[in-house]
């Protein structure tokens, strides 16, 4: 048996660990276009901010590949998959055979299609190399323009503010973090970020990045110009599907995965930011390009590659962010688009607290908690298990809400809460 994994971030690493719990001896080859892939992608903005030391960025020790008896082909791009011959062509024309393949090629930052995008001083923030490159030019930077008010854009903005730069964020849509939270929550977050000196301009987009070789500013679609020496592009990511698509593996937005995380082709699996799976809240096929989903998918795909029969229940959008001491967590559908959904909201403006739960037919499908984030995991569990919460809906946003309050739902539930950890409650209540 020869396992091959393309991609060595969260999904790839977790797949290796999963395979090794079942198969200690077969050969595993990992192909990664990153030279030093064992870092935590989520932490690169922390590294840029200087809030963690260089050691904490490493998600796994240096010896990880050796410890797991993995042959690591690093800094090498997988070029082509031949699904009939079951082999992969890599950069140096070599061919690698596989019995079981995992495609965990991840996603790439979307770059804007505007003039000047190729100038020196324009960066996305996706890899540890981006961080290193940005850091190496920071001495010469006074002002930064961040294009995009999503998670990455704002994390970059926060990091560079922490490095003493003047930071302005340009957000095309009407509010920040619009993919993750609603306007009310975004308003609270934006106020805190602005109070701490980051400028945010909503409803404005860059139409050109100016400068000779290096950036000297951005021209905006409202006619004004903003001077800066560094531009960060935070416009989200798109899945790296090309290699799969070219091989004839079924793709849509991402690579389509079934509930075993297998692609449309026998013996070829997919996991992480490139894979499209069932979204538990939306109840449709979607990509949730987030760390926890990549890790879980990697683990389950890895197990199934060894012949296990693990089911992937699906993914759920979830994000946790904190800016200047103000945390926000959201899970599932936070901005419902039809009146089939109902919302329960609790606010305490003085304490910057905002809590919202989105319901559909008595079942929670989404949640946002700002500044009072404790117990949000319990709400997340109710979403995952599709529990009817009608009996507790009046207390879910109260401070005293906790696990005890959902115990009766767990006992009553017929289809959810199958994990052994819930047995104690079911048995003794």
């Amino acid at each position, binding site marked *: 048996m020869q396992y091959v994994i393309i991609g060595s971030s969260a999904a790839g690493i977790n797949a290796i660990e999963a395979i090794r719990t079942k198969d200690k001896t077969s050969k595993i080859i990992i192909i990664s276009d990153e030279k030093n892939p064992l870092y935590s992608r989520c932490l690169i903005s922390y590294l840029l901010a200087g809030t963690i030391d260089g050691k904490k960025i490493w998600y*796994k020790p240096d010896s990880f590949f050796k410890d797991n008896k993995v042959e690591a082909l690093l800094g090498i791009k997988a070029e082509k998959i031949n699904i009939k011959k079951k082999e992969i062509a890599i950069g140096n024309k070599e061919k690698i055979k596989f019995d079981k393949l995992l495609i965990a090629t991840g996603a790439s930052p979307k770059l804007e299609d505007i003039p000047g995008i190729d100038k020196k001083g324009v960066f996305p923030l996706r890899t540890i190399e981006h961080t290193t490159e940005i850091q190496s030019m920071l001495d010469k930077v006074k002002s930064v323009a961040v294009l995009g008010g999503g998670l990455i854009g704002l994390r970059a903005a926060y990091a560079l503010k922490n490095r003493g730069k003047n930071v302005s964020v340009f957000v095309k849509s009407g509010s920040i973090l619009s993919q993750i939270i609603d306007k009310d929550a975004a308003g609270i977050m934006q106020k805190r970020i602005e109070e701490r000196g980051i400028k945010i301009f909503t409803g404005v987009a860059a139409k050109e990045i100016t400068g000779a070789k290096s950036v000297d500013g951005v021209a905006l679609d409202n006619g004004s110009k903003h001077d800066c020496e560094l531009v960060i592009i935070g416009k989200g990511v798109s899945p790296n599907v090309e290699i799969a698509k070219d091989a004839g593996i079924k793709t849509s937005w991402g690579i389509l995965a079934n509930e075993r995380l297998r692609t449309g082709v026998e013996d070829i699996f997919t996991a992480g930011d490139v894979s499209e799976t069932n979204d538990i809240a939306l109840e449709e096929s979607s990509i949730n390009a987030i760390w*926890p989903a990549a890790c879980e998918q990697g683990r389950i795909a890895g197990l199934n590659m060894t012949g296990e029969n693990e089911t992937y229940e699906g993914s759920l959008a979830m994000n946790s962010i904190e800016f200047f001491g103000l945390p926000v967590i959201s899970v599932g559908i936070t901005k419902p688009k039809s009146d089939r959904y109902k919302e329960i909201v609790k606010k305490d403006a003085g304490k910057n607290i905002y809590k919202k739960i989105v319901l559909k037919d008595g079942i929670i499908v989404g949640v946002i908690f700002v500044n009072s984030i404790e117990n949000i*995991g319990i709400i997340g569990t109710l979403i995952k298990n599709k529990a009817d919460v009608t009996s507790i809906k009046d207390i879910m946003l109260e401070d005293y809400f906790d696990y005890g309050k959902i115990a009766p739902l767990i006992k009553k539930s017929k289809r959810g809460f199958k994990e052994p950890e819930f047995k104690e409650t079911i048995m003794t209540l």
Partner: protein
Amino acid sequence: MKKIYCNIKKCLGCGSCEIACAIEHSKSRELNKSIAESPLPVKRRKAEFVEESVSISTGCHHCENAACVTACMSGAMYKDKKTALTQHDKDRCVGCWMCIMTCPFGAVTRLREEKIVLKCDLCPDRDKPACVEACQTKSLFLGTLKEFTKICST
């Protein structure tokens, strides 16, 4: 794997487990001294009402497929390879709150200022965790799920 279980039928919600936990995780490990400590010791276990006159003492369940470990982006939350317990390395923790986002039991405590989390470590310095020893009604039990199931049915 041995861990802590609570028999809801026996639990009075008295909070002895909470106090014992906080003291065990204090500097002095003595009640009268620990209440004067700064920062105050933090409990990792909670006595919660289910409904009137029904309570549960709950904390980290050291889940088999621990959502907090899966979600942890820094590697601070991990599975001990020998014991299968869910452990937390505070030196690796960056305070991203991903564990809080995913814990089904609300069993991870956030320290806002320190930007780290705390959770049940099953009292590594003791034979029996402090909460189990302090439980007045013997509702808390240290053992395997099989053992717990057996004593609940007798």
